């Protein structure tokens, strides 16, 4: 007998009723993709996905599974026949491998036809361990804890479990168009969406030569980090220079950012619809900069009734930085190429813009034509499993 199976517990499945089948199918697919390089057999039933480890070391596999959304917990389990004799031997063996002075046994009896109830089974197994070892029972702070799940076909014994990402399986609840600047916030926002099971496609606004092409390289590196959680990510680059220049010719300085964000949202919504995404997402956090005050957001969002998600809207900067460091994107984001050139940075941007004024100023140039031109000249890059790949 050996602990040679990984048992994957589903995420927020309880609330999903009819969607259970779709959830499981999607998660099983994602697990298979994530574990492709290990080549291990996986199968799913109503309650769990099982991965047969064979001789593989479970640690790197668990580490990989911790990057897959839709997983609540992962345990390394030993499978035995649903009979007391085998369960006793299994529990004793696991505890000997752990070799801690105290233990606790938790039994869950799914198959209610089993003659003993949970308490009865617990006592039986514990008696056996006490008779065959020097270990003592401690129900409050056990050195080792064995979980026993008794089903009709088998019993699953485990000493270890780790928390997964939670959320829904990636791709199950659609995709969004994520506006990615290259700063610290937007990669964290993208991660928050992915973790929830929402697939992201990224959109970047580039203003060459005012911004350096080095920013695009930076974005590619950021997406490589996010590949751990979403194996394929599309990045689209919007040539934004002409609109930037038109704005700065026609709009008074304090309103430049407001009008610029209105243009960006228009383009992002058009791209989202074209890509069949169900929402646009940004890394905005309320109040952080002039364009992210509630007043500004109101005026900017007025250009569309398409949903706009702001996963970080109430996060504070320090917590965002903390998450970015954990993701590994922080060091990339702080490279000294900015997404916005100082030439286009107004000294006193409006923090409480007025809708009428913003509309009036942007009516001074033919933005519809410029936006159409942008949409026709989008460059698309694919980042897949850690590297740039040819278009699909």
């Amino acid at each position, binding site marked *: 007998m050996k602990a040679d199976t990984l048992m994957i517990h589903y995420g927020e499945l309880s609330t999903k009723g009819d969607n259970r089948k779709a959830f499981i199918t999607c998660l099983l697919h994602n697990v298979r993709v994530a574990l492709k390089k290990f080549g291990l057999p996986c199968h799913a039933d109503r309650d769990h996905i099982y991965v047969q480890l064979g001789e593989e070391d479970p640690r790197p596999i668990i580490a990989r599974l911790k990057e897959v959304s839709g997983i609540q917990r992962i345990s390394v389990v030993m499978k035995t026949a649903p009979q007391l004799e085998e369960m006793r031997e299994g529990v004793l063996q696991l505890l000997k491998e752990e070799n801690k002075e105290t233990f606790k046994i938790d039994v869950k009896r799914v198959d209610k036809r089993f003659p003993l109830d949970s308490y009865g089974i617990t006592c039986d197994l514990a008696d056996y361990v006490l008779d065959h070892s020097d270990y003592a029972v401690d129900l409050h702070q056990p050195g080792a804890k064995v979980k026993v799940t008794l089903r009709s076909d088998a019993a699953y014994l485990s000493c270890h479990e780790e928390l997964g990402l939670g959320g829904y399986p990636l791709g199950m609840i659609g995709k969004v168009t994520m506006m990615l600047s290259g700063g610290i916030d937007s990669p964290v926002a993208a991660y928050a969406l992915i973790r929830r099971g929402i697939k992201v496609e990224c959109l970047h606004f580039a203003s060459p030569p005012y911004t350096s092409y080095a920013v695009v390289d930076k974005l590619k590196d950021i997406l490589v980090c996010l590949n751990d959680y979403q194996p394929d990510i599309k990045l689209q680059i919007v040539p934004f220079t002409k609109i930037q220049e038109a704005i700065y010719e026609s709009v008074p300085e304090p309103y430049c950012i407001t009008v610029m964000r209105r243009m960006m949202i228009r383009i992002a919504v058009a791209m989202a619809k074209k890509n069949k995404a169900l929402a646009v997402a940004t890394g905005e956090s309320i109040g952080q900069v002039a364009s992210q005050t509630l007043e500004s957001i109101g005026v900017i969002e007025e250009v569309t009734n398409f949903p706009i998600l702001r996963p970080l809207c109430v996060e504070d900067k320090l917590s965002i930085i903390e998450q970015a460091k954990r993701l590994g994107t922080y060091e990339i984001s702080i490279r000294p190429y*900015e997404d916005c*050139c100082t*030439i286009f940075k107004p000294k006193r941007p409006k923090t409480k813009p007025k809708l009428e004024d913003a509309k009036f100023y942007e009516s001074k140039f033919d933005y519809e034509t410029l936006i159409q031109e942008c949409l026709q000249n989008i460059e698309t890059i694919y980042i897949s499993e850690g590297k740039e790949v040819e278009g699909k």
Partner: protein
Amino acid sequence: MTYLDFASSTPPRSEVLDRFAELNRESFANPSSTHALGREAERKLEQERKTLLDLFGVGASHRAVFLSSATEGNNLALKGVALQYSNRGKKILVSSTEHPSVIEPLDYLANTYGFEVIRIPVDSLGRVLPETLQGLMDKDVILVSVMGVNNETGAVNDLAALSKIVHAYPKAFFHSDLTQAIGKTDVPYKDLDLFTFSAHKIHGLKGVGALVLRSSIRLVPSFHGGGQEYGFRSSTVSLPLAGSLVKAVALSLKEQKKSIAHVSALRDVLLEGLQEKGMVLNSYPEGCPFVVNFSLPLHKASVIVEGLSQRGIYVSSLSACSSKTDQVSYVLLAMGKSKEEAGNSIRVSLDGSTSLEEVESFLNNLSALLLEVRPR
């Protein structure tokens, strides 16, 4: 592609690559090994060393240390001399427009060992004038460092005159960073007590440079270990890299006259074109023709450099396009330029292989960008 950034790096010549491969294949043994193969490698290494010194005409008076780069050479020369001879005095003079690989080691000596490091002012063209140096010299000075050709502007220092002033003081050594000078201007190698350079600026390989110094000079070592390179720089010497460097120097000196004539003509076209566009010139007509520096009166240098880069033309500027990291050139500030000029300069650096078409293409694209791009 129009590459006009030869002062940053140059492509290695095929002769250099061949020499590197040849020595790698033929003499891989450690020159410090005492067996026949090792002795063979050592013999070749000493031959390369002798050839190098002879190329500079200093075979009788100097020796050469092979090392990794000009930065390493400057560090070894400056720290090595200062620490070795600190009992003679603690005053060091350095021109205010030196490369960071000279300034930083000297600042380190000042901050850590209490040396008095004095910056020698330059004139408005970026040169250390002999009379300025003369005014700063005294009997406490143990070391003077003045570069041959400035890497940002191409300003040329009169090393013969400067060394003469230093050598009137018997305790003082004269060091010169020749990284941008070899093969690009006449250098009085014999007059220099120590000089440094790297191979990749003269169509050699990255990862190799040399420090040439008068045989009587002792240095506190940079690396301690097996005692290679006169004990100044322990480390197994790479014969192939050393040989590739000597090849690069030989070809560079051989073609010096021809390439100066060729590049001077291009530089004149460049200076004229830039002047027509109203650019502020930071290089002067008598300077080293291989480097031309100018400031943009209205535009941001980083934006123009990025625009040129997108058009396949590669030149250099100091600053990235960022409010946080805007840098100004301390070299241009030292020449008395304004902060705006020093923060918005572009360096174009030429080579014997540069064509007139490339220079014209640069000028045309610059004109187009100046019209297209918003001023700063």
